[in-house]
Protein backbone atom coordinates (compact mmCIF):
# COMPACT_ATOMS: atom_id res chain seq x y z
CA UNK A 1 0.00 0.00 0.00
CA UNK A 2 1.28 3.43 -0.98
CA UNK A 3 1.66 5.83 1.93
CA UNK A 4 0.28 8.99 0.26
CA UNK A 5 -2.66 7.25 -1.40
CA UNK A 6 -6.02 8.90 -0.77
CA UNK A 7 -7.93 6.52 1.47
CA UNK A 8 -11.61 5.83 1.95
CA UNK A 9 -13.56 4.02 4.65
CA UNK A 10 -13.37 0.86 2.57
CA UNK A 11 -9.69 0.99 1.68
CA UNK A 12 -8.54 2.03 5.18
CA UNK A 13 -6.69 -1.04 6.54
CA UNK A 14 -7.40 -2.72 9.86
CA UNK A 15 -4.00 -1.77 11.32
CA UNK A 16 -3.11 1.53 9.60
CA UNK A 17 -0.27 2.06 12.06
CA UNK A 18 1.55 -0.94 10.57
CA UNK A 19 0.31 -0.98 6.98
CA UNK A 20 3.47 0.25 5.22
CA UNK A 21 7.08 -0.87 5.53
CA UNK A 22 8.05 2.52 6.95
CA UNK A 23 5.29 2.18 9.53
CA UNK A 24 6.47 -1.29 10.55
CA UNK A 25 10.02 -0.02 10.97
CA UNK A 26 8.85 2.95 13.02
CA UNK A 27 6.76 0.70 15.22
CA UNK A 28 9.70 -1.59 15.95
CA UNK A 29 12.15 1.28 16.43
CA UNK A 30 9.83 3.09 18.76
CA UNK A 31 9.36 0.09 21.04
CA UNK A 32 13.12 -0.31 21.12
CA UNK A 33 13.32 3.31 22.24
CA UNK A 34 10.71 2.64 24.94
CA UNK A 35 12.87 -0.25 26.23
CA UNK A 36 15.73 2.23 26.55
CA UNK A 37 13.46 4.75 28.27
CA UNK A 38 12.56 2.06 30.79
CA UNK A 39 16.23 1.70 31.70
CA UNK A 40 16.66 5.48 31.85
CA UNK A 41 13.78 5.93 34.28
CA UNK A 42 14.79 2.85 36.28
CA UNK A 43 18.23 4.37 36.89
CA UNK A 44 16.60 7.64 37.99
CA UNK A 45 14.29 5.72 40.33
CA UNK A 46 17.30 3.80 41.68
CA UNK A 47 19.14 7.07 42.32
CA UNK A 48 16.09 8.54 44.02
CA UNK A 49 15.63 5.51 46.27
CA UNK A 50 19.30 5.58 47.25
CA UNK A 51 19.23 9.31 48.05
CA UNK A 52 15.72 9.62 49.46
CA UNK A 53 15.64 11.82 52.58
CA UNK A 54 19.43 12.18 52.53
CA UNK A 55 19.82 15.78 53.72
CA UNK A 56 22.81 17.56 55.27
CA UNK A 57 21.09 19.03 58.34
CA UNK A 58 17.93 18.34 60.33
CA UNK A 59 16.22 21.60 59.25
CA UNK A 60 15.74 20.30 55.69
CA UNK A 61 12.27 19.11 54.75
CA UNK A 62 11.91 15.35 54.23
CA UNK A 63 9.51 13.55 51.91
CA UNK A 64 6.89 13.09 54.62
CA UNK A 65 6.90 16.86 55.28
CA UNK A 66 6.65 17.80 51.61
CA UNK A 67 4.11 15.67 49.81
CA UNK A 68 0.39 16.36 50.01
CA UNK A 69 -2.10 13.78 48.89
CA UNK A 70 -4.85 15.92 47.26
CA UNK A 71 -2.49 17.48 44.70
CA UNK A 72 -0.84 14.17 43.79
CA UNK A 73 -4.24 12.52 43.52
CA UNK A 74 -5.51 15.24 41.20
CA UNK A 75 -2.41 15.02 39.00
CA UNK A 76 -2.73 11.23 38.86
CA UNK A 77 -6.35 11.43 37.77
CA UNK A 78 -5.54 14.03 35.10
CA UNK A 79 -2.78 11.94 33.56
CA UNK A 80 -4.69 8.67 33.80
CA UNK A 81 -7.73 10.22 32.12
CA UNK A 82 -5.53 11.71 29.40
CA UNK A 83 -4.28 8.19 28.73
CA UNK A 84 -7.87 7.06 28.12
CA UNK A 85 -8.66 10.04 25.87
CA UNK A 86 -5.68 9.18 23.68
CA UNK A 87 -7.02 5.62 23.46
CA UNK A 88 -10.27 7.18 22.18
CA UNK A 89 -8.26 9.17 19.65
CA UNK A 90 -6.61 6.00 18.32
CA UNK A 91 -10.01 4.26 18.28
CA UNK A 92 -11.26 6.95 15.89
CA UNK A 93 -8.02 6.77 13.90
CA UNK A 94 -8.69 3.07 13.25
CA UNK A 95 -12.24 3.96 12.19
CA UNK A 96 -10.88 6.58 9.75
CA UNK A 97 -12.61 9.45 11.55
CA UNK A 98 -10.06 12.24 11.39
CA UNK A 99 -12.13 15.01 13.03
CA UNK A 100 -13.04 12.88 16.04
CA UNK A 101 -9.41 11.79 16.42
CA UNK A 102 -8.29 15.43 16.42
CA UNK A 103 -10.94 16.28 19.01
CA UNK A 104 -9.83 13.54 21.41
CA UNK A 105 -6.18 14.41 20.88
CA UNK A 106 -7.11 18.00 21.75
CA UNK A 107 -8.73 16.83 25.01
CA UNK A 108 -5.60 14.79 25.75
CA UNK A 109 -3.45 17.89 25.25
CA UNK A 110 -5.65 19.96 27.58
CA UNK A 111 -5.45 17.32 30.34
CA UNK A 112 -1.68 17.10 29.86
CA UNK A 113 -1.34 20.88 30.09
CA UNK A 114 -3.36 20.88 33.32
CA UNK A 115 -1.05 18.19 34.73
CA UNK A 116 2.01 20.22 33.77
CA UNK A 117 0.53 23.36 35.33
CA UNK A 118 0.00 21.59 38.66
CA UNK A 119 3.53 20.19 38.53
CA UNK A 120 5.00 23.67 38.03
CA UNK A 121 2.87 24.91 40.94
CA UNK A 122 4.09 21.98 43.06
CA UNK A 123 7.79 22.59 42.38
CA UNK A 124 7.36 26.30 42.98
CA UNK A 125 5.60 25.54 46.27
CA UNK A 126 8.42 23.25 47.48
CA UNK A 127 11.13 25.75 46.60
CA UNK A 128 9.44 28.73 48.24
CA UNK A 129 7.70 27.17 51.24
CA UNK A 130 10.19 24.45 52.14
CA UNK A 131 13.46 25.64 50.54
CA UNK A 132 13.55 22.22 48.93
CA UNK A 133 15.48 22.89 45.73
CA UNK A 134 17.68 21.11 43.23
CA UNK A 135 20.83 22.20 45.06
CA UNK A 136 19.60 22.09 48.67
CA UNK A 137 20.38 18.41 49.26
CA UNK A 138 21.09 15.07 47.59
CA UNK A 139 17.42 14.31 48.21
CA UNK A 140 16.43 17.48 46.34
CA UNK A 141 18.69 16.70 43.37
CA UNK A 142 17.37 13.14 43.06
CA UNK A 143 13.75 14.24 43.46
CA UNK A 144 13.83 17.02 40.87
CA UNK A 145 15.84 14.92 38.42
CA UNK A 146 13.35 12.04 38.52
CA UNK A 147 10.07 13.97 38.66
CA UNK A 148 11.45 16.75 36.45
CA UNK A 149 12.54 14.27 33.79
CA UNK A 150 9.04 12.89 33.76
CA UNK A 151 7.62 16.42 33.54
CA UNK A 152 10.00 17.07 30.65
CA UNK A 153 8.63 14.00 28.91
CA UNK A 154 5.09 15.32 29.43
CA UNK A 155 6.11 18.67 27.93
CA UNK A 156 7.79 16.97 24.97
CA UNK A 157 4.82 14.64 24.44
CA UNK A 158 2.44 17.59 24.41
CA UNK A 159 4.61 19.43 21.90
CA UNK A 160 4.78 16.31 19.75
CA UNK A 161 1.00 15.81 19.69
CA UNK A 162 0.30 19.50 19.07
CA UNK A 163 2.77 19.63 16.16
CA UNK A 164 1.22 16.49 14.60
CA UNK A 165 -2.29 17.92 14.99
CA UNK A 166 -1.38 21.24 13.37
CA UNK A 167 0.84 19.81 10.63
CA UNK A 168 -1.81 17.32 9.52
CA UNK A 169 -4.91 19.44 10.20
CA UNK A 170 -5.69 19.97 6.51
CA UNK A 171 -4.31 16.65 5.25
CA UNK A 172 -6.72 14.22 6.81
CA UNK A 173 -5.69 10.69 7.67
CA UNK A 174 -3.33 8.75 5.44
CA UNK A 175 -1.05 5.78 5.82
CA UNK A 176 1.73 8.37 5.97
CA UNK A 177 0.55 10.09 9.14
CA UNK A 178 -1.44 7.33 10.89
CA UNK A 179 1.76 5.70 12.28
CA UNK A 180 2.90 9.12 13.51
CA UNK A 181 -0.28 9.61 15.52
CA UNK A 182 -0.11 6.05 16.80
CA UNK A 183 3.47 6.37 18.07
CA UNK A 184 2.74 9.70 19.74
CA UNK A 185 -0.09 8.00 21.63
CA UNK A 186 2.21 5.11 22.61
CA UNK A 187 4.65 7.67 23.99
CA UNK A 188 1.83 9.31 25.92
CA UNK A 189 0.83 5.98 27.48
CA UNK A 190 4.44 5.32 28.42
CA UNK A 191 4.52 8.66 30.25
CA UNK A 192 1.53 7.45 32.25
CA UNK A 193 3.29 4.14 32.97
CA UNK A 194 6.20 6.07 34.47
CA UNK A 195 3.82 8.27 36.46
CA UNK A 196 2.17 5.21 38.03
CA UNK A 197 5.55 4.34 39.56
CA UNK A 198 6.27 7.95 40.48
CA UNK A 199 3.05 8.40 42.42
CA UNK A 200 3.58 5.05 44.12
CA UNK A 201 7.32 5.10 44.82
CA UNK A 202 7.92 8.82 45.31
CA UNK A 203 4.67 10.21 46.69
CA UNK A 204 2.76 7.41 48.40
CA UNK A 205 5.88 5.71 49.79
CA UNK A 206 7.15 9.17 50.73
CA UNK A 207 4.03 9.87 52.76
CA UNK A 208 4.29 6.48 54.46
CA UNK A 209 7.79 7.43 55.57
Amino acid at each position, binding site marked *: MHAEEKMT*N*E*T*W*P*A*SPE*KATLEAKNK*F*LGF*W*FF*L*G*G*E*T*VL*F*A*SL*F*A*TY*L*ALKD*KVPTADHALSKDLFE*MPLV*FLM*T*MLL*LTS*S*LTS*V*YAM*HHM*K*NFEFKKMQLWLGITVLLGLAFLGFEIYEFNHYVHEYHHSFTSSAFGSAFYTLVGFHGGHVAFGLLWIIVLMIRNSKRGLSLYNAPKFYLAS*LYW*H*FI*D*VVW*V*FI*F*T*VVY*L*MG*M*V*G
Partner: protein
Amino acid sequence: MANQQSTSENPRVDLDYRRKKNAEDMRYQVITFSLMIFLTLIAFAAVGFGDLSNWFVVPFILLLAVVQVIFQLYYFMHMSHKGHEAPQLFLYSGVLVGFITVLAFMTIIWW
Protein backbone atom coordinates in the same frame (compact mmCIF):
# COMPACT_ATOMS: atom_id res chain seq x y z
CA MET B 1 -7.74 -10.17 23.08
CA ALA B 2 -6.28 -10.35 19.66
CA ASN B 3 -7.91 -7.61 17.65
CA GLN B 4 -6.08 -8.51 14.47
CA GLN B 5 -8.82 -7.67 12.05
CA SER B 6 -9.67 -9.36 8.80
CA THR B 7 -7.38 -8.69 5.90
CA SER B 8 -9.69 -10.10 3.25
CA GLU B 9 -9.40 -9.00 -0.35
CA ASN B 10 -12.78 -7.32 -0.21
CA PRO B 11 -12.70 -4.87 2.70
CA ARG B 12 -16.11 -3.45 1.80
CA VAL B 13 -17.73 -6.63 3.08
CA ASP B 14 -16.15 -6.66 6.49
CA LEU B 15 -16.31 -2.93 7.17
CA ASP B 16 -19.29 -3.44 9.45
CA TYR B 17 -17.51 -6.29 11.16
CA ARG B 18 -14.41 -4.18 11.71
CA ARG B 19 -16.41 -1.27 13.11
CA LYS B 20 -18.10 -3.64 15.53
CA LYS B 21 -14.77 -5.18 16.47
CA ASN B 22 -13.29 -1.73 17.12
CA ALA B 23 -16.28 -0.73 19.24
CA GLU B 24 -15.93 -3.93 21.25
CA ASP B 25 -12.23 -3.27 21.70
CA MET B 26 -13.04 0.23 22.95
CA ARG B 27 -15.45 -1.18 25.53
CA TYR B 28 -12.65 -3.33 26.93
CA GLN B 29 -10.44 -0.24 27.05
CA VAL B 30 -13.04 1.61 29.13
CA ILE B 31 -13.34 -1.38 31.50
CA THR B 32 -9.54 -1.40 31.79
CA PHE B 33 -9.62 2.30 32.59
CA SER B 34 -12.21 1.78 35.36
CA LEU B 35 -10.05 -0.95 36.86
CA MET B 36 -7.01 1.34 36.76
CA ILE B 37 -8.93 4.12 38.50
CA PHE B 38 -10.09 1.58 41.09
CA LEU B 39 -6.51 0.36 41.74
CA THR B 40 -5.35 3.97 42.09
CA LEU B 41 -8.10 4.70 44.61
CA ILE B 42 -7.14 1.64 46.69
CA ALA B 43 -3.48 2.66 46.67
CA PHE B 44 -4.26 6.21 47.84
CA ALA B 45 -6.77 4.95 50.40
CA ALA B 46 -4.29 2.41 51.80
CA VAL B 47 -1.85 5.25 52.49
CA GLY B 48 -4.38 7.96 53.38
CA PHE B 49 -6.92 6.22 55.58
CA GLY B 50 -5.54 2.81 56.40
CA ASP B 51 -3.97 2.43 59.81
CA LEU B 52 -1.75 -0.26 58.36
CA SER B 53 1.87 -1.07 59.04
CA ASN B 54 4.49 0.02 56.52
CA TRP B 55 5.58 -3.55 56.07
CA PHE B 56 2.23 -4.25 54.52
CA VAL B 57 1.43 -0.96 52.76
CA VAL B 58 4.66 -0.55 50.77
CA PRO B 59 4.63 -3.98 49.05
CA PHE B 60 0.86 -3.68 48.62
CA ILE B 61 0.91 -0.36 46.74
CA LEU B 62 3.90 -1.54 44.67
CA LEU B 63 1.88 -4.58 43.65
CA LEU B 64 -1.07 -2.35 42.70
CA ALA B 65 1.30 -0.21 40.59
CA VAL B 66 2.65 -3.28 38.78
CA VAL B 67 -0.87 -4.54 38.02
CA GLN B 68 -1.92 -1.11 36.76
CA VAL B 69 1.14 -0.88 34.51
CA ILE B 70 0.38 -4.32 33.07
CA PHE B 71 -3.12 -3.09 32.20
CA GLN B 72 -1.63 0.01 30.61
CA LEU B 73 0.90 -1.96 28.56
CA TYR B 74 -1.33 -4.83 27.46
CA TYR B 75 -4.54 -2.92 26.77
CA PHE B 76 -3.84 0.79 26.25
CA MET B 77 -0.58 0.09 24.42
CA HIS B 78 -2.03 -3.01 22.70
CA MET B 79 0.75 -5.38 23.75
CA SER B 80 -1.90 -8.13 24.00
CA HIS B 81 -2.43 -7.91 20.24
CA LYS B 82 -0.61 -10.06 17.73
CA GLY B 83 2.66 -8.83 16.26
CA HIS B 84 4.03 -7.53 19.56
CA GLU B 85 6.72 -10.16 20.10
CA ALA B 86 9.61 -7.75 19.44
CA PRO B 87 8.08 -4.99 21.61
CA GLN B 88 7.79 -7.52 24.44
CA LEU B 89 11.43 -8.52 24.05
CA PHE B 90 12.54 -4.87 24.06
CA LEU B 91 10.39 -3.85 26.99
CA TYR B 92 11.16 -6.84 29.19
CA SER B 93 14.88 -6.47 28.49
CA GLY B 94 14.53 -2.87 29.67
CA VAL B 95 12.59 -3.98 32.74
CA LEU B 96 15.23 -6.59 33.59
CA VAL B 97 18.13 -4.14 33.37
CA GLY B 98 16.06 -1.58 35.25
CA PHE B 99 15.21 -4.02 38.01
CA ILE B 100 18.87 -4.97 38.49
CA THR B 101 19.80 -1.28 38.60
CA VAL B 102 17.21 -0.52 41.29
CA LEU B 103 18.20 -3.60 43.27
CA ALA B 104 21.89 -2.68 43.12
CA PHE B 105 21.34 0.94 44.14
CA MET B 106 19.15 -0.05 47.06
CA THR B 107 21.58 -2.62 48.43
CA ILE B 108 25.13 -1.41 47.77
CA ILE B 109 24.70 2.32 48.41
CA TRP B 110 24.66 3.46 52.00
CA TRP B 111 25.92 6.24 54.23
